[in-house]
């Protein structure tokens, strides 16, 4: 009897040890950074929502490119999800608020563009698998090296039509005042143009310029108010009938954000600039049902890349390595 008990105990002990070893299960070899998306019952409604305290913060490093070559940046990233939506919170240092994006300035009896850009952050996910995106990240789709099959015009596009990416593009001047991030996607670069496309529906921004390109065409409609950071929304604009009302030093928005409709306006945005940096929350349905959006399945892992633009155009950015997005119950 004692022998049987001993054998049973040994078998049980071995099974437990075996179970512990099984816990080794997944054996990842590469040191790829992971942003864990935590499940919450109710999604955050603001940048300071208590829900964000429960999410794990990941400091994602960025390397500067082109005019930012040799510089570094970082974005503290958090993510949570509910039954039907995903939420991201990004915080990064930026001592200068840049939201003018070539705004018009009236001086010396003429209109000129202010030589300034805007702050932005963008995220790229795979809708359909992009070859080597999971290991090389945006290098294979956005910041394509010379000589690559999709290197036409240098940027933005995939090597084949089967490869599709979902590009979330938060722009401090051109989308944020409308409460959205510009929802776009990328596909194969054609002979004539790049692979960036706007999602179905309407959105983006409207240029505020006359036909002769000498001055702004629109101003704030009566009874309306300027949006965040004094930016004129396309929906609140009215054609200028009397230019004599403008005084020296007046500034008028050049790129007027549209409120957006349909798939183009899937990504909602909340932001704040303060204490020398940006805090931005983006949220979207896990599955929008649109072909031009990545459908998040919380059982899967996703790869994504990010880019940061500090008062700069597409060429000059800070880029992250590819990151894993992992949902956690």
């Amino acid at each position, binding site marked *: *009897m004692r*022998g*049987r008990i001993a*054998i*049973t105990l040994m*078998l049980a002990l*071995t*099974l437990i040890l*075996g*179970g512990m*070893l*099984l816990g*080794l*299960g*997944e*054996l*990842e*070899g*590469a*040191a*790829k950074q992971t942003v864990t998306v935590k499940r919450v019952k109710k999604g955050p409604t603001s940048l300071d929502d208590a829900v964000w305290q429960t999410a794990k913060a990941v400091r994602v490093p960025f390397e500067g490119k082109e005019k930012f070559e040799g510089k570094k940046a970082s974005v503290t990233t958090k993510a949570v999800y509910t039954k039907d939506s995903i939420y991201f919170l990004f915080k990064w240092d930026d001592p200068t608020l840049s939201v003018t994006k070539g705004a018009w300035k009236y001086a010396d009896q003429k209109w000129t563009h202010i030589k300034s850009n805007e702050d932005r952050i963008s995220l790229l996910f795979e809708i359909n*698998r992009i070859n*080597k995106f*999971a*290991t*090389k990240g945006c290098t294979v789709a956005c910041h394509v090296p010379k000589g690559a099959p999709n290197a036409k015009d240098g940027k933005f596009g995939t090597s084949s039509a089967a490869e599709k990416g979902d590009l979330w593009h938060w722009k401090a001047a051109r989308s944020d005042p409308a409460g959205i991030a510009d929802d776009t996607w990328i596909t194969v670069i054609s002979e004539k143009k790049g692979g960036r496309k706007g999602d179905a529906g309407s959105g983006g921004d409207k240029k505020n310029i006359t036909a002769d390109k000498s001055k702004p065409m629109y101003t704030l409609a009566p009874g309306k108010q300027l949006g965040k950071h004094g930016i004129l929304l396309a929906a609140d604009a009215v054609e200028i009938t009397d230019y004599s009302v403008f005084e020296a030093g007046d500034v008028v928005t050049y790129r007027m954000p549209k409120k957006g409709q349909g798939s183009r306006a899937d990504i909602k945005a909340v932001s704040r600039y303060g204490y020398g940096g940006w805090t931005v929350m983006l949220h979207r349905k896990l599955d929008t049902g649109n072909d031009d959006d990545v459908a998040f*399945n919380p*059982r*899967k*892992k996703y*790869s994504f890349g990010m880019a940061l633009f500090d008062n700069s155009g597409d060429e000059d950015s800070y880029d992250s390595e590819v990151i*894993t997005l992992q949902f956690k*119950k």
Partner: protein
Amino acid sequence: MSGTDNQSETLLERLALDGLIARVRDLQVSSDSLTWSRFCGSLALVLVVLLFLSGAFMAFYYSPSPGAAYDSVDYAQFSIPFGDVVRGIHHYSWNLLLVVMGLHLGRALLLGAYKAPRQFVWVSGLVIMLVVPAFIFTGDLLPWDQKGYWSTQVRNSIMGSVPVVGDFQVRMLQGGPRLGIVALTRYYVLHTIFLPGLFLFLIAGHFHFLGHRGLSSPVFGRETARRKVPLVPNIVNRWLVLFIVVAVVLGLVAWYWPAPLGDPADPTDSTYVPKPEWWVLFLNQLVGIFTGPLTVVGTVIIPGGLVGLMMALPFIDRSPERHPARRKKTMLVAAVISLLVLGLSVMGYIEHHLTVLE
């Protein structure tokens, strides 16, 4: 009712299966064939059946080409209803099979079940155990993810270091100097056709020897005549209950902890460093210890010697004594080898899994 029976019997007669069915119905086995202290063999069989069934499901969706393999596995796992449960069952089954087979072997070693007249029950069981890693190695590459791709690269380079035949066998496996579409096709054919066929043959052989030599009698307790019960339905029903329980438990485990699917394989990504899985940690340590001209010691001589020793055990230890306390030499050698394997595994675990990547 009798009309139906007559029809059934007639059909069996027409199919010439009546004799076989009658023999199966008449089979009597020991009543302790499937009890708590003796169920690892039955559990291993449950896991093998689950592996075959889940593997067949996945094969319906699998496409063995580097451009499509990953997407086909991803689709089967995440787009087909319960696809992740099925793949999870496959994943956890082979992990558990290794543990259960180890326990099965350990029990036979401890209780001297390998001794005459059951030498070939032991030998055939060992051969089955040697085939399981071949399943794992070939199956690991099929999802064409980073882990499978780079682990296979490492394994093949170790295999290629074997003197004389190493390079030849790697080329036979890969169909060329590197892993590509030919290699994936060969691994797929090996994993789904050749190895399952061989495995079924070996299991049949194991049962053949078991049927003829019988289960080992209990070592502990009083020597009493063991009661016999019919295989059908008594033991088969117990086995079916075990099958259902294991399938449900593994299904739940797979539901809560889906089987891992890494990033798609990128042969140009030399930054990926695969980590050895838990069951090869000790072999990996051996390869690390014996380097340079001594590589063959870690890759061939020690593992081969260990297998040879175990194969020869029933023919070396020929005394009829089965009680472990009265087989001190055998137990001492087994304990030393087990401790070495465990120690090397722990070292490997610390080195590969507890070391923080720089």
